[in-house]
């Protein structure tokens, strides 16, 4: 009786997750299910991480390949923490999608990876025709990361803060 298995989420969340996974399979196909899940190891990230611009560009190049987003569409900007509102998830500028990263987020490759992954998933969803005003878009971005094999970074950096 002490080991009775039960689903660790309530019915509404279970139903939402099941429905959205069906949607992801239908819209993104099943190819990703046969590709390796990306792990935080040198095998998947064969470069030294330093909290600087060069490492950040390398990291985005690596993650965008895993996420299936053309890196030519992307740009990066590092913004200083002001303690005010966080920067937007993505800035559309001159035909490019600029991904803002706060300077304090560079201290930890896991943190910056999870932030970039959420932004890349957001782009994949917009490309698939999801309306950016959809109320479940932040959650769906994170579920998409799990579906496409990039969810470990997001799960390992869960904080009580709302996801960006």
């Amino acid at each position, binding site marked *: 009786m002490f080991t009775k*298995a*039960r*689903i*660790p*989420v309530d019915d509404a*969340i*279970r139903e939402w*997750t*099941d429905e959205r*996974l069906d949607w992801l*399979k239908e819209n993104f196909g*099943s190819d990703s*299910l*046969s590709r*390796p*899940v990306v*792990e*935080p*190891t040198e095998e998947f990230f064969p470069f030294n991480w330093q909290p600087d611009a060069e490492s950040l560009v390398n990291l985005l190049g690596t993650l965008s390949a895993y996420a299936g987003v053309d890196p030519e569409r992307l740009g990066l900007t590092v913004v200083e923490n002001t303690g005010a509102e966080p920067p937007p998830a993505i800035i559309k500028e001159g035909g490019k999608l600029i991904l803002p990263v706060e300077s304090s987020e560079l201290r930890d490759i896991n943190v910056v990876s999870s932030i970039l992954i959420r932004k890349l998933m957001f782009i994949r969803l917009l490309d698939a025709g999801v309306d950016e005003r959809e109320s479940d878009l932040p*959650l769906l971005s*994170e*579920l998409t990361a*799990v*579906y496409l094999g990039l*969810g*470990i970074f*997001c*799960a*390992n950096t*869960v904080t009580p803060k709302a*996801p960006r």
Partner: protein
Amino acid sequence: MDFNMYGYAFAKVAQLREESKPAWQGHIRLNALHPMKQAAKALKKNK
């Protein structure tokens, strides 16, 4: 998503990938790994 949601989602995706004990689960923090294992058991039982 919170740790329980991640746990359930990982268990569902492992099921879709037809992996009963995936090696990649070793990289997941315990906060999400525990609900993942719990969900995997329940999904297997209810299959």
